């Protein structure tokens, strides 16, 4: 199994996909952190509430949990990790080397979960550096106290778990473009609609988006799960898709 996990890391590191996605995640998170810091304390505009001012705990929660927004890029990394085997037809040598295909999926889950840890740490570091420098320049650099570290930890956890979910979604759908488009449509079309319809509200907390909110929100919202429950639920989604993918899709004929 160690060999299979290392093989997955070799696959990951010998193409440049990961570089683009990691850079994208850093730029995105750094950019949002800078944007929110720059706009912090701005006057409310047209009925929209403004961003909390620099120096308040609310501001600090917003800018430190912004790192979790890079989860979509980790999701794509995981999706590509599985679907590239089909896209470039390397599923053939991969399954010839490891005929028990469930082991390949398991190795990918472990490999991408572990690979996502340093990526998440890097993204968090970018977030922290941008916030400390920019908010410091605006007069109140946040301290990395227990509350803020918890926020950062939750965001990092979301990043790692989304890489695992990506591997699972890729195993289930096999088609790279379809899996990525499907995941984006789900995250940015389906979930916002579900969460905005009153009748469906009770279901939302059980969806991945609701679970992410449960993990990253400090405040105790009544219609969300506890943070640890949300983290488990997210991990469950990753493992469930991977399991279904192994049983329903990965075992199919490789022609």
């Amino acid at each position, binding site marked *: 199994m160690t*060999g*299979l996990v*290392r*093989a997955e890391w*070799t*696959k990951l590191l*010998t*193409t*440049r*996909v990961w570089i683009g996605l990691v850079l994208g995640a850093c730029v995105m998170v750094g950019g949002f952190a800078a944007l929110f810091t720059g706009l912090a304390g701005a006057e409310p505009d047209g009925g929209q509430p403004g961003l909390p001012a620099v120096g308040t705990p609310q501001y600090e929660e917003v800018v430190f949990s912004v790192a979790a927004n890079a989860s979509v890029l980790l999701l794509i990394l995981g999706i590509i990790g599985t679907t*590239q085997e089909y896209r*470039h*037809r*390397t*599923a*053939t*040598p*991969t*399954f*010839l*080397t*490891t*005929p*028990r295909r469930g082991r390949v999926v398991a190795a990918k889950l472990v490999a991408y979960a572990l690979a996502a840890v340093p990526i998440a740490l890097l993204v968090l570091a970018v977030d922290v550096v941008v916030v400390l420098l920019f908010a410091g320049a605006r007069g109140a650099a946040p301290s990395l106290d227990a509350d803020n570290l918890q926020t950062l930890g939750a965001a990092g956890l979301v990043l790692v778990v989304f890489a695992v979910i990506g591997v699972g979604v890729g195993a289930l759908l096999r088609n790279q473009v379809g899996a990525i488009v499907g995941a984006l449509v789900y995250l940015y079309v389906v979930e916002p609609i579900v969460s905005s319809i009153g009748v469906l509200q009770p279901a939302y907390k059980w969806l991945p988006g609701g679970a992410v909110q449960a993990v990253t929100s400090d405040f105790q919202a009544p219609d969300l799960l506890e943070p640890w429950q949300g983290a488990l639920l997210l991990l469950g989604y990753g493992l469930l898709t991977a399991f279904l993918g192994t049983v329903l899709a990965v075992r199919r*004929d*490789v*022609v």
Partner: protein
Amino acid sequence: MRVEVSGLTKSFGTVRAVSDLGFTVEPGSVTGFLGPNGAGKTTTLRMVLGLITPDAGSATFDGVPYAALPDPVGTVGAVLETAFHPARSGRDHLRVYCRAAGLPVSRADEVLTAVGLATAGRRRAGGYSLGMRQRLALATALLGDPPVLVLDEPANGLDPEGILWLRGFLRHLAHEEGRTVLVSSHLLSEMEQTADRVVIVGAGRLVRQGSITELRSGAQGAGTVLARTPDADRLAAVLGDAGMSADRGTDGLVTVTGATPAEVGARAFHAGVELHELRAETTGLEDLYFRLTAGQEQFAATSPTPEGAAR
């Protein structure tokens, strides 16, 4: 190590791709897996290698199916389609499978050298020519130094020099190193020069299997012999007395079936019949294969050569 295929059957939707196919592949020889395009060769090889689940039948390596082999990479090497990530170098491609199979990564450089790709190993596989891709696929198959090699149309895309190299390479692996080599092709001429034995399939069914010489001269080692003589009547009578069936053609030509040239020559010599020409009709295999391909594959031919299919 011996490969045994028996009763393999696979349908895709309503199309029967492979039908009750059985044959064996012996060590120490190159076995050609010959059939027109669409005859089910690739499907069969993929079933043998556990990539496609057969509807019925089995394929085993010394009795063990591929999926149950304790060390698949060290047992069977396979060259199927040339499947690489285009952005990954050939060397990195090989290192991935070294790691997955628990082999030292130095094995990647060894097999690159063995197939003549040492200098191109660090270049992106996407930039490789078709011939280089085939060599990389072969290198992948050789990683575990396996006693069995299965190759699907490995000559595709190779230039004449590459084909010559491949032919020598495969024969060396089988004859000198005693490996079991199964290689598919739709080209009879290629197989005649590479293989010791052939398994011929048409429309997913076994048509013939046997050694090249055996098939060339007919199933029993005795095929059609052509003799030319100024005294055709006498030769036909002499051969008829010996129990051979001799037909007189024009221009002193006698066509003998159920005999070898040596037997015909001996009879003629004893009877004092002058011979101007004596040769085996070697087109038996070409004829057979041509009839097979002329029927155009799986759509036309449910059973292209009944006498062969029954064997």
